[in-house]
């Protein structure tokens, strides 16, 4: 005997035979000397472990899957005696090696439900009721031939002190409900073999400390519904291999301390305005004033003109003048109101002499038609150089506007800015205001995101019911001191 009750003789002396008889070792020798066995579940029955007989099956903690994540394992065939070798300790830890045909498995189970199970089909279930810590001193390699699912109900932190290399042979999808922050302390290289589409529903900001370069070998389109501003402290060069057209519906302004506009053919047209300045030189072959309707030029000229004039109202010097109201010096005058006495009286002719105004002068009329308003207005409206009408998008309140389509504001009445999942819809519909929002629900139904039966008031048959009173339970725990195998199966509250 090796139990703690070996000292029976001594105990009888100390506590008396009567006491010892009630506490001591069974005289038959078939009972556990420690008094701890058999367990209650084994009273009045075989002491062979129930798992060994297949009456019970040891199971590890296995708390269901997650939505769309199955951890379903094939059912385990009950053990057959005597194939299952079970070793179970006092507190409930167990170790089983089961050779039951068709149900071969091994299980090492902690009393809490944690453990390791090698199932008949070759599956391995590793279960931890509480924390699981895995420490590897050397390398760690995982090869999975099938699919995998990782679900963390809390936060997940991954730290790699070396390189982190991910190779995806299929698609790579990332769905982040909150923010995504990327900090790259070295270079960031992105190569896209095909297309890249980006939709930003808020604002976008980019800061570049040094240089920025974009090379586009195809076309580049830039549309801005608001203002487009470009500020450069240094030089700006806009160069085109072909045409460069800039138009503005309201105003176009180009200003600089030194402004150059150069062209082999140049046109500056306007119905009114100003060209020139105090020290501006004009070169050209013809100058035409605007006609006054009678065919006469209505243009005024102020200042000094060195050259030839068909008519001069005031002239400091006129070689010849058909009519000169005031000339300091005239070699010849058809008619003069005044003449300086020093030069002698000028011949005064009642009938003015009409001089030929084209001495060596040859009239060279302009090549282009006169830029009258009749010409300029349609030119601005419909020609290739006309003002372009720009409409980027209609107002956001317009359900057909691009912004409304991107933000889906009208689709979901500002409750979603994207196509929601059924779980998100269910969440929104918990508010009666949203549930009764016909536009919201109607569009969801139309988009195929919500069942048309969503408002159905009742459906299906009624199964079990339970009132506010506590439910009656059947046979969970035996009442009183009834042996386990004779449980009364009574109802109790």
């Amino acid at each position, binding site marked *: 005997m090796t139990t703690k009750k070996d000292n029976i003789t001594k105990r009888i002396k100390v506590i008396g035979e009567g006491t010892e008889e009630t506490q001591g070792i069974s005289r038959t020798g078939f009972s556990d000397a420690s008094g701890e066995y058999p367990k209650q579940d084994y009273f009045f029955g075989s002491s062979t472990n129930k798992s060994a007989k297949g009456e019970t099956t040891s199971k590890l903690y296995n708390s269901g899957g997650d939505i769309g994540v199955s951890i379903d394992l094939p059912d385990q065939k009950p053990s057959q005696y005597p194939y299952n070798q079970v070793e179970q300790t006092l507190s409930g830890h167990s170790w089983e090696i089961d050779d039951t045909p068709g149900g071969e498995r091994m299980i090492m189970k902690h009393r809490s439900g944690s453990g390791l199970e090698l199932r008949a089909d070759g599956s391995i279930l590793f279960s931890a009721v509480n924390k699981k810590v895995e420490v590897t001193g050397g390398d760690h390699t995982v090869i999975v031939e099938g699919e995998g699912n990782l679900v963390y109900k809390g936060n997940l932190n991954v730290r790699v002190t070396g390189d982190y290399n991910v190779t995806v042979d299929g698609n790579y999808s990332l769905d982040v409900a909150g923010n995504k922050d990327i900090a790259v302390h070295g270079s960031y290289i992105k190569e896209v073999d095909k297309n890249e589409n980006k939709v930003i529903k808020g604002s976008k900001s980019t800061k570049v400390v040094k240089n920025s370069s974009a090379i586009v070998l195809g076309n580049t389109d830039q549309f801005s519904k608001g203002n487009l501003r470009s500020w450069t402290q240094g030089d700006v060069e806009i160069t085109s291999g072909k045409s460069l057209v800039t138009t503005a519906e309201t105003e176009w302004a180009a200003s600089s301390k030194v402004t150059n506009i150069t062209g082999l053919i140049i046109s500056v047209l306007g119905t009114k305005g100003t060209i020139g300045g105090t020290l501006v030189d004009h070169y050209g072959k013809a100058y035409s004033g605007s006609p006054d309707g009678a065919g006469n030029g209505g243009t005024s000229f102020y200042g000094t003109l060195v050259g030839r004039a068909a008519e001069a109202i005031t002239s400091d010097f006129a070689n010849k003048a058909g009519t000169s109201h005031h000339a300091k010096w005239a070699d010849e005058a058809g008619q003069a109101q005044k003449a300086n006495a020093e030069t002698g009286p000028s011949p005064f002719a009642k009938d003015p002499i009409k001089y030929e105004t084209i001495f060596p002068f040859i009239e060279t009329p302009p090549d282009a038609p006169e830029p009258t308003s009749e010409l300029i207005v349609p030119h601005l409206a419909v020609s290739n150089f006309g003002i372009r009408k720009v409409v980027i998008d209609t107002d956001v309140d317009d359900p057909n506007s691009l912004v409304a389509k991107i933000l889906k504001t009208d689709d979901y009445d*500002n409750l979603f800015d994207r196509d929601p999942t059924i779980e998100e819809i269910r969440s929104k519909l918990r508010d009666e205001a949203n549930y009764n929002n016909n536009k919201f629900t109607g569009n969801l139904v139309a988009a195929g995101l919500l069942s048309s039966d*969503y408002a159905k008031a009742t459906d299906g048959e009624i199964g079990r019911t339970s009132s506010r009173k506590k439910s009656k339970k059947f046979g969970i725990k035996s009442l009183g001191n009834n042996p386990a195998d004779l449980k009364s199966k009574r109802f109790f509250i």
Partner: protein
Amino acid sequence: MSIYLVDPSYNPNFASDITNKTVLAQGISVAKFLGARGSRNQFERVSADKKQIARNLYLHAELLKKTTANSDFDDFRIIVSEGIYVPAINESVTPDGINDYRQTGKAIVYKVINTKGEVDYSKTYDLAVYWKDYCDYDKLILDYDTYDPSGIPSCQIVVVMPTVPESFDIQFLRRIETTFNTNLQSSNELVELLL
């Protein structure tokens, strides 16, 4: 009113700062009530008093802890399907509605998922009855719906807890009801619908 006994290790009143990492019970952090499929939110976006939220969520964490200890649900996972609610920018939340309560963590919606990753209707009813019998709450709603256009019905449990003051002096009203597509099917009774 009665004082609810709080595990000092997880008492939100003692936490210097409430974040999504704040632990409310063993293995249950605030994050559990944020990343639900029906309400994917970040704690930073929540405008309500975070300590108040944490105190309210503490009762939900206790609910989950008690359920985990029940072997009847060993093969099932109780997930938060609709957690803390953050309304859309221009959304007006109906006062004292479920979504209003969800903003402060008073109300949370749960689902029971089996090992195949599907909602288990029968076990959801069992869980609702278990919570009704053995747990504390203000209101418990067994909610069925046919919202999914694929035709698969859904079943979930909405649990509303009382607002938990700093003193944890609270009273549970323990009201129950059953709804289908938000329509009341039964008050003061949990009814299993066989959809």
